[in-house]
């Protein structure tokens, strides 16, 4: 009986402490869904420099949370998305953008694959030309031509065994 009471008491204490914690854990639920959606859009464009393969929208790193708050504050101050992205680039460099900008230092990144594709097409085309030329220039000796004629006329050259007649 004592055991049951103590267990019940424990559960009660646990529940009360959960209730006591509830307000602080549920707090960040936003008041303005439109603003929050905008914060999310911008956060998805930015790389978290602490954990580099995540956007700051995905990341729970301290810095990512600070930057999300920064975005929220700046949005409420009426700044545009472009202005906020620019603010981040000024501080963290182009690397902070998940999608690298097209500029002199990144043109190879953007255009490189297409350049390589064009090169591949060029080499393929050249290879085809070489083959074509090779085929058209192919010369046969008299002996080869005679053998080919023999094959065409008789069905088989002499040195190949004739199939046996069927009974």
């Amino acid at each position, binding site marked *: 009986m004592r055991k049951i009471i103590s267990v019940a008491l424990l559960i009660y204490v646990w529940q009360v402490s959960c209730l006591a914690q509830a307000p602080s854990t549920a707090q960040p639920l936003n008041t303005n869904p439109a603003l929050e959606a905008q914060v999310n859009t911008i956060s998805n464009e930015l790389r978290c*420099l*602490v954990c*580099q393969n995540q956007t700051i929208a995905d990341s729970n790193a*301290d*810095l990512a949370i*600070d*930057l999300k708050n*920064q975005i929220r504050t700046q949005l409420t101050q009426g700044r545009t998305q472009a202005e906020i992205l620019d603010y981040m*680039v*000024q*501080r*963290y*460099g*182009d*690397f902070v953008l998940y999608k690298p900008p097209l500029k002199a230092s990144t043109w190879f990144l953007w255009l490189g694959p297409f350049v390589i594709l064009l090169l591949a097409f060029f080499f393929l085309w050249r290879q085809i030309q070489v083959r074509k030329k090779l085929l058209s220039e192919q010369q046969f000796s008299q002996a080869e031509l005679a053998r080919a004629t023999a094959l065409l006329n008789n069905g088989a050259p002499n040195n190949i065994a004739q199939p046996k007649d069927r009974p």
Partner: protein
Amino acid sequence: MKRYLVPLALFVLLLGFLGLGLQLNPREVPSPFIDKPAPQFTLGILGNDTASFSPAQMRGQVWLLNVWASWCVACREEHDLLMTISQQKIVPMIGLDYKDKVADAELWLKERGNPYALSISDSKGQVGIDYGVYGVPETFVIDRNGVIRFKQIGPLTPQIFQDKILPLIRKLNA
């Protein structure tokens, strides 16, 4: 034989690029601040509630801005070196106590020694954001005109200090 040479050469080239990639540290992102003026701010000084610091006060001298925090494990690695730099009076050093509690920070300096001329308390991390800080510790070398000339991400090592920072300080002071 010749037909195997081309793929082999391409493979060796690929290996070369991959090998090069292994040598690089992906955490070292080129800072957009190099050769740009250090962002201005005014913040309270750690352990002195009435005084404040602004980078403009360091005009006319070459100085280091070292970002640290008592919660930062890697800061322990460089602390001895910072103490040496400070004891030998090589260059004035200002600490930026990043996202830290004042009591913890003061305890840290008391226990390990204080290499800084003064430390600024950036408890909210706003100055950290303005300086593009993402991996504490970080160290900035700032010249006489308040222009950032070098940034070290991660702990300073005696080798980095000897090879990169010391020559730069000498050059800037010359």
